[in-house]
């Protein structure tokens, strides 16, 4: 059974034929398209390592069947800077030591980018409240427990994105 879909991945249209309807967005990215920046942690929607932006919203790629998202726009960690200057969220994670081993980091960064976008759209910005950041980021686990740095990085990244004015994250979903 040929299952043809088209996805826009990091700004590039990709037409492909799936040989199996079971393929999740996560497995498609990692195993078929060699975009291994998106990580497989639990593969059950519990750890957030596979977070990508799907049509501009953060979701767990492990629970999304690729076939069901024909036509979607996907942003992965590979598309965030694309060889250019670091995205403000990436820069903030580095500056605040928001990681140790780094395995969860792509998911953390994609989730933070999604969170900041949500704050702009829904008016749910965390402001300077670390409690709101922790709550909004609770879908991303860090086994190294770098949560203090992650929280500081996200608080700072919000300010950097706001200062960038043009919304650095809007480019991501364009």
């Amino acid at each position, binding site marked *: 059974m040929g299952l043809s879909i088209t996805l826009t991945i990091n700004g590039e249209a990709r037409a492909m034929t799936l040989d199996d309807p079971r393929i999740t967005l996560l497995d498609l990215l990692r195993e078929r398209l060699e975009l291994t920046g998106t990580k497989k942690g639990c593969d059950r929607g519990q750890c957030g390592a596979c977070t990508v932006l799907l049509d501009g919203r953060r979701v767990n790629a492990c*629970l999304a069947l690729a076939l069901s998202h024909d036509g979607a726009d996907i942003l992965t960690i590979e598309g965030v800077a694309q060889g250019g200057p670091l995205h403000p969220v990436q820069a903030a994670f580095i500056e605040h030591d928001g990681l140790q081993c780094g395995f969860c980091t792509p998911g953390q960064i994609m989730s933070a980018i999604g969170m900041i976008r949500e704050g702009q759209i829904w008016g749910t910005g965390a402001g300077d409240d670390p409690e709101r950041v*922790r709550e909004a980021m*609770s879908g991303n686990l860090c086994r190294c427990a770098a949560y203090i740095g992650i929280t500081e990085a996200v608080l700072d990244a919000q300010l950097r994105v706001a200062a960038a004015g043009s919304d650095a994250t809007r480019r991501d979903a364009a």
Partner: protein
Amino acid sequence: MNRFEYARPATVEQAIAAGAVPGSAYLAAGTNLVDLMKGGVIRPSKLIDISRLPGLDRIERLSDGGVRIGALVRNADLAHDADFARRFPAVAEALLSGASAQLRNAATTGGNLLQRTRCGYFYDTASACNKREPGAGCDAVGGENRLHAILGWSGQCIATHPSDFCVPLVALDAVVEVAGPAGRRDIPLEQFHLLPGERPERETMLEAGALITAVRLPAEAAGFASHARYLKIRERTSFAFAVVSAAAALRLDGGVVAEGRIALGGVALKPWRAREAEALLAGAQPEPAVFRRAAEAALEDARPSGDNAFKIELARRIVVRALTLAAAGTPERMPALPASPFSGVFAHV
């Protein structure tokens, strides 16, 4: 995961025809379905992808003041719809206390109602479960069951329904709009989920092929907007299912409770409306002794199904706390930790 066929019907009618075929399952976001399929808990032979059915992704304010929430409206979109959240704040709070931001961005209204129990024995295909395999027995009985049901359970099944969203919905008289092979009909949410009895494999009123098209709240439900809360005890602060939870909504008139609504989550295989407790609130002062009596009434029929007697007193206390915070008034801004009993509590005691 088993192999399956895949179809994406263009209309509700086509979906129903496809969904009525034995072995079919409806796919919306898949946040629960794909998880269950990965574990081999359910093995549908065909997925009917309803995620793009037209017209089911809208939040409509009805001319009578009620609201119709399309079955495909995402949890996050509903919780952050400013008009909806202002009129039904306890529903928004319940939504935001559930799952994670990633899951709320995907998960749908209809899918939330139809999510399966998180009983570990249901998920573990090596264990006996009457839901998964009728007649197999129930390994939760006598097993690890400290989080299991305290109301409405049977010897065949002691699981709970995990939804937060459904708890304030049932308190506010939500109605489920269903389309099926026999046509369209409305089912009150209070009757939608079935208690286990002797046939725990039957979970809802939906017949084969039927699907949820919308959930409706009546105009009266907005009358509680200024005094409505959802509170939830979790084993960690965020991204966890309820040990017990409660929705409380009050309509105050001249300092007296004109009408009160109470429902409980995490206690039974359905969102549990506590009508006897509500009757004690009507005409009473919004004060601790009244709230405690209401809580006693809400849990009057509760009994442990295992190592979970603690949940009975915990549920009473969450009812009292939810009523206390509801009486104090709906917060102007969603609390930093939605539904947390530890958020904002010091302002009220």
